[in-house]
């Protein structure tokens, strides 16, 4: 187990190395540069050249890359061109929002998706089955930003149940420790701050959960249907076990294997930010900031953020693999 984790983490090094090369080349191939973003149309060629020199962008690309790698090894991601702040600082300020949003969305998607998928399979061909399969199709098809606007219009603007934007009401004056607002509220025992942060999460998380929810419903349903036909379920029935035990121990546990894999992939996807949802709810996560950085050609931010996201993605999948081996003894890691 321990060796498996170490090996997977060591595999991360060549992955990051390859990714950094690709990113470096790809970013420099984008037309324009930070100088265009800063100066706009008016800058003279001299001014552009001065900015490029200032940022070290006039040097050969290999030297630039070498400098980047040297800094990376010291875990220094450099300074943002547009905000002039450390990339690490920017990240630590914004990523907790994305993490909170991702966790809430996945809790909703898993909490509703697995029971619904299971029930749909058990009531195959009946109303609930058709409704959930049809509903999940809508969930996949509907654009997330559109759903976000609808949720905001109904539950925030019309009914006033939830706040419409931001991560927390600034007038509360909550103490910041980790930048995970809910966690901070719990740690400092500022319950109202935690509750307020949670309320801010509901609508964006609901919008964000739509696609994962739809996918989880469908995978669970298909997987349960498959397991229900397995011989060992018949054996369990032949033992006279109660329906409850058959369901939990024999059907669900086996049906969870493909679901866990998809939960991992979906979580990793959400952690790379949700540009549109964050924009609609003025929610400060990494998504909108990354999109801005692309427009600004903010090379250090893009490089740094994407590298960290890659690490997080690998870690999430490592956790999935480990949990997989907990559920299925045939996949013992070694």
């Amino acid at each position, binding site marked *: 187990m321990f060796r498996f984790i170490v090996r997977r983490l060591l595999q991360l090094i060549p992955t990051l190395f390859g990714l950094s090369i690709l990113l470096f080349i790809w970013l420099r191939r984008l037309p324009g540069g930070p100088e265009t973003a800063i100066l706009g149309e008016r800058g003279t060629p001299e001014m552009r050249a001065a900015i490029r020199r200032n940022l070290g962008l006039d040097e050969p690309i290999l030297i630039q890359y070498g400098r980047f790698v040297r800094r990376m090894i010291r875990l220094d991601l450099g300074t943002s061109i547009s905000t002039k702040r450390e990339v690490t600082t920017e990240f630590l300020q914004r990523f907790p929002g994305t993490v909170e949003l991702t966790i809430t969305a996945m809790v909703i998607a898993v909490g509703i998706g697995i029971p619904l998928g299971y029930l749909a399979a058990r009531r195959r061909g009946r109303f609930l089955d058709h409704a959930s399969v049809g509903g999940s199709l809508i969930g996949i098809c509907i654009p997330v930003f559109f759903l976000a606007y609808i949720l905001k219009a109904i539950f925030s603007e019309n009914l006033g149940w939830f706040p419409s934007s931001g991560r927390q009401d600034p007038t509360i004056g909550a103490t910041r420790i980790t930048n995970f607002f809910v966690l901070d509220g719990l740690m400092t025992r500022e319950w109202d701050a935690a509750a307020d942060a949670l309320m801010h999460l509901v609508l964006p998380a609901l919008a964000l959960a739509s696609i994962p929810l739809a996918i989880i419903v469908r995978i669970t349903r298909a997987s349960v*249907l498959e397991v229900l036909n397995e011989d*060992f379920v018949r054996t369990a029935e*032949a033992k006279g*076990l*109660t329906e409850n035990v058959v369901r939990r*121990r024999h059907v669900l546990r086996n049906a969870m294997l493909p679901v866990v894999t*998809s939960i991992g992939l979906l979580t990793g996807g959400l952690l790379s930010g949700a540009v549109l949802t964050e924009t609609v709810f003025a929610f400060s996560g990494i998504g909108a900031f990354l999109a801005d950085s692309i427009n600004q050609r903010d090379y250090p931010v893009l490089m740094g953020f994407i590298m960290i996201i890659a690490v997080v993605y690998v870690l999430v999948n490592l956790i999935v693999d480990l949990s997989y081996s907990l559920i299925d*003894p045939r996949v013992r890691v070694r």
Partner: protein
Amino acid sequence: MALLDVEDLSVTFARRGQRTVRAVDGVSFSVEAGEVVGLVGESGCGKSVTSLAIMGLLPKQPGLQVAGKAVFDGTDLLQLDDRSRRDIRGRDVAMIFQDPLSSLNPVVPIGLQVTEVLTRHRGMKGEAAAKEAAQLLDRVGIPDPRRRLKEYPHQLSGGMRQRALIAMAVACQPRLLIADEPTTALDVTIQAQILELLKDLVRDSGTALVMITHDLGVVAGMCDTINVLYGGRVVETARRRPLFRQPRHPYTVGLLGSVPRLDAGRGERLNPIPGSVRDLLPWPDGCAFAPRCDRRVDACVGEPPDLVLTHDGRSYRCVNPAPLPGLTPGAEARETRPGQATPGSVPAQAVPDDPPAAPGLAAAPSEEETP
């Protein structure tokens, strides 16, 4: 009164837009306490569906119809509600299945799969249940049972897995054990061991055993009474010795004749029954075996053959049975029962490909999912 009395059991699968399929078409047989009864027949003759119907394990689906009676110790199992059926299953009537690997849950340790029966029916928990489970594994011949309890099915060999399944089945000392081809998926040496184990278990505990198989060798080795099935009906019933010495129904004759023999001369060919199970006459139109039968006469076609009960306690469903030496045909019959059949339906084998005789036994339906 017999321990289990199956009377006129029929199982039909109706599908919209298709003809109704009769997988089991009026099967009757009985099992005395402590007796070993064989249900023999080739694939698709309704053996497995019969056993699943008795256990109430046929997958619930619209169009499934189970008729007749299966009276176990005074209660008709087919009339029970789901809850009382669960109470009886695993406690009074237990079952062993064909493929030991797929019949065990891959993600649950063997120990829990044994103790869950003990917990359910005997209220045993914790250390007491574990101790009993270890004893059960020991009894079915699994060495080092304490360690095996913690292992998972994939860590056991095929023979061990079947032993574990048998341990689960006999955990509550059931009065009836149904074994559905318990040795088919095992190699020959293991087969013999498993059969030996089953024989010992039923002899020691007085459990009655219904042995479902296509293997006449299995039947010859352990069954007291044998029922030969064809096309969803019992075509011949006899004690073991008379059946092997003097088979009456031409199908039984064919089955026995097609067994490969070690003492056969070199280059001698096998003696198969001509045709295949698909060449089947629906019972209402006559004897289902008629198209493949070499003793066929005109009377075979037109209406289903009567069931003939003979003086020596045998029965067969044939108008022109293989002759017995020193006995004129007709003189032996004690009683005949008309072979009624429900018109308008076809036996399972007469319908090519679809649907399978037992839906639960077929491959999982392919679910097309686009995540």
